[in-house]
């Protein structure tokens, strides 16, 4: 029943007191939000905090009547996540501290992990680490479009709205990002070692 409801219908029911409707929204959008945050924030614990803070902020805003439906609930949530990330970097800049934590490999859940051999598993982890590095080396504006499009599944129209640029600019950034990533793949000889 709830699975067939639109985001807005779920919000309406949640505001009326139907708690489980917000839980459905979390289940529906958690991967998009988490992918966006975790590809920006190296520190896993911090990424998890920001992930939770995003949804808690969504609740506060919904309850105080700050959300008006225009069919773009997920874009609005991503904008909240985006602002929380920016706030975090501002705080870090003020404190002048930078985390040197490397990317945590246990961020990735693999269903077939148990079946894979140790060697395959290590290669897989290395590839994932390489991909993260590849993405992190992109210029900020290009990285954002790649994450929002490929990992969070937003349309270019939604990305343009969130990043305050035209659709053409978002598309252009994506193209440059793909060209740059291919170049880096060739330079660093990164490829799909195992299938």
């Amino acid at each position, binding site marked *: 029943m709830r699975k067939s409801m639109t985001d807005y219908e779920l919000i309406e029911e949640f505001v009326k007191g139907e708690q489980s409707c917000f839980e459905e929204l979390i289940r529906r959008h958690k991967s998009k939000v*988490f992918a966006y945050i975790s590809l920006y924030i190296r520190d896993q614990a911090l990424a998890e905090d920001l992930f939770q803070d995003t949804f808690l902020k969504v609740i506060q805003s919904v309850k105080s009547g700050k959300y008006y439906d225009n069919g773009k609930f997920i874009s609005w949530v991503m904008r909240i996540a985006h602002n929380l990330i920016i706030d975090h970097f501002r705080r870090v800049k003020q404190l002048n501290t930078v985390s040197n934590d490397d990317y945590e490999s246990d*961020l*990735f859940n693999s269903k077939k992990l148990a079946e894979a051999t140790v060697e395959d598993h290590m290669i897989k982890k290395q590839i994932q680490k390489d991909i*993260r590095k*590849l993405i992190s080396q992109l210029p900020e504006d290009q990285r954002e479009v790649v994450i929002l499009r490929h990992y969070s599944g937003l349309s270019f129209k939604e990305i343009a709205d969130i990043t305050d640029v035209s659709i053409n600019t978002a598309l252009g950034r994506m193209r440059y990002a793909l060209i740059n*990533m291919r170049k880096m793949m060739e330079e660093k000889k990164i490829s799909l070692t195992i299938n």
Partner: protein
Amino acid sequence: MIKTLRPMAKISTQFLSYHEIQVDDIDLYEDAFGFYQEFGDVFKLLDRLKPVPKKKLTERLIERVRQMN
């Protein structure tokens, strides 16, 4: 010459009207730019990374949401 022609649609593919074309899961802008055709190798590599929140993290969040209400 005219006698050999057959009416359209009996032997050829039916024309589709615009509303019959399924575009729900397609980003038309991306489709128009042909990114997937041109950069298939890059996308294939990016697909190898699937960041998903741990089950415990989702459960913790849902618990906090319940406490808020």
